[in-house]
Structures are given as structure tokens and as C-alpha cells.
């Protein structure tokens, strides 16, 4: 059901916003890029909540806290957490693409998927991950 897929995507947007807030203390030299990512996720969250309300669903609220895949204690771990949450976002929006025939929702989900893939690549590149690119964003092995 596409409402469930959109709720899942909203959940990753909440998690991404929370993570950008968490890492900002460790990435002072990347403040502009962090702010840009944060703003993009906030805008996406708002659009997604609006879509859910328009479709008669109650948007799921954010959790009190999220657990990054590894503890964030310095610059490199902060970059890893950002790359991870952006890749989770890719997977959630790809899930929406596969569960809806609504053209507008598809377009919006593809924009979210692409933007998250580009940000994930940026953070991976900064962290020196090889390869920095993600061949198939949103695919578990990608």
C-alpha cells in the first residue's frame, strides 16, 4: 500500500533530520553542507506529511531519538552516519517508487531518491570511501 511506503519514507526523513542535528557539532568545517542537507530533509518531511494528510492518513511522528549504525564521536564517524542515513532514505523512496502508480508521487519520490543519493555520495567522497558513488541507490547491495 503506498500510504505505508510513504509513512516509511517519512520515518527516514525524521531520522535524517535528527542525524543532521546530531553530527553538526562534529562537522563545523562542513557547516554549509550540513545545513543544506538539513534544510532539504526538513522540506521533504513537510511535503511528505502534507501528502499523507491529503490522503486521509495521520503522519507518523518522529521518534525521540534514533540509533546510528555506529556511535558518532568525531568527524569520520559523523560522515559515516550521514552517508548511512542518506542511503536509508534512498531505500525508503525507492520503496515508494515501486508501490505507487500515482505519477506525481513517483516524480516526488524520484526527486527524493536522487537528492539523497547525491548527498550520500558527497559524504562518502568526503569520508574517502571507495567507491564514493552508489551504483544502485536504494538497492540493498547497491
Amino acid at each position, binding site marked *: 500500500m503506498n500510504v505505508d511506503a510513504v509513512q516509511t519514507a517519512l520515518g527516514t526523513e525524521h531520522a535524517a533530520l535528527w542525524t543532521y542535528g546530531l553530527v553538526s557539532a562534529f562537522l563545523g568545517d562542513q557547516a554549509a553542507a550540513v545545513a543544506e542537507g538539513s534544510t532539504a530533509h526538513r522540506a521533504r518531511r513537510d511535503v511528505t506529511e502534507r501528502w499523507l494528510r491529503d490522503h486521509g492518513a495521520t503522519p507518523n511522528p518522529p521518534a525521540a531519538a534514533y540509533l546510528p549504525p555506529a556511535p558518532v564521536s568525531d568527524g569520520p564517524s559523523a560522515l559515516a552516519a550521514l552517508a548511512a542515513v542518506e542511503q536509508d532514505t534512498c531505500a525508503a523512496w525507492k520503496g515508494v517508487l*515501486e508501490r505507487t502508480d500515482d505519477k506525481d508521487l513517483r516524480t516526488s519520490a524520484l526527486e527524493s531518491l536522487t537528492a*539523497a543519493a*547525491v548527498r550520500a555520495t558527497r559524504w562518502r567522497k568526503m569520508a574517502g570511501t571507495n567507491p564514493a558513488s552508489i551504483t544502485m541507490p536504494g538497492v540493498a547491495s547497491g
Partner: protein
Amino acid sequence: METPADAVSAAVDAQGISFAGLPPRPHVLGRGLAIWGRVISDSVSRRRVLLAVAAAPLAVACTTESAPPPPPDPLSALAAQARADAALAKTLTTPAAAEIAKARETHATLLQAEVDRERPPLSSTAPPVPTAPPTPPDPLAALRTALDGAAREASVLVPSLPSYRAGLVGSVAAGCASLLEVLS
């Protein structure tokens, strides 16, 4: 003395029409009638067979004429473009180009697999071999332009595709955007 019925019976038996496993027919009155009935039904079925055989090419001709060739699979063009991008990236020697070549080869494989899944290729049609393109004066700029075009073309397709294909093509579009970010 041999009756006409006996002659027919012999002819029928000689043609191997009698049913295997049936007990031998008893010599009783009315047997001739029974045999004529079988001969008639046999000749009717033979006529039907002949008619069917004669009509078969006609039926084939009608079927092939009425079904127009299906339009080319839109994913086929995306796969061809991915192969071309991989070939172009291979002309460069930077690590980023090697990464792009590998990623675009993966895209080509996944897209071609989906094309072949929906429309299995005829065994006689060889998989298209990427023709070596002339090396452009600025291969890096050409690669950037190609990736940008690939992301755009895949994105344009996404809203109209069946949902099981939308995820694949959307992921390829996002993958091209990711590769562009590596080049930037």
C-alpha cells in the same frame, strides 16, 4: 463366401483402424452396419484432419499479419546508453572513470536483464555489441554530458513505467546522479 461387409472389415483392419485391446468382433447380424458406421466416422475425421492441415498456414498467415510488431522496449535504449557510457569511460585512465565504467556496466546488465525477462531474445539475435565510438576531444566533458543525459532520460521514464520497473529505472537515474557527483 466373402460379403461386401467382410471386404470392408478386411480393408479397415488392414489400415490399422480397429481399436487395439478390443475383443475380436463377433460374427453377428448387423455387423456390416456397425462397420459402415465406423468407416463413415473415420472418413469424417480424416476429412477434418485434412482440412485442418490445409488451413494451418492460412491461420498462421492471419495471426502474423494481425499482430503488429511491438514497439521497442524503452529500457533497451537505456541499456544501450549505459553500455556506451561504460565504453567511453574506459577510454579514460582516472580512478573516477574506472568507477563510472564499472557502475554503468552494472546498469547495462540490470537493464538488459529486465528487457530480456519481459521479451526473451531470439536465440538467433546476438546481444548488441557496443561499437567503439570515436574518442571525443574532451572525453571527461563528454562523459559528464552523457551521465547527465542518462539521468534525465531515465527520470523521464519513471512516472509512466509499471511499478516493478519504476524502482529499477529510478535507481539507475539516481546512480547516474551519484556518478556525476563523483566527477564534480
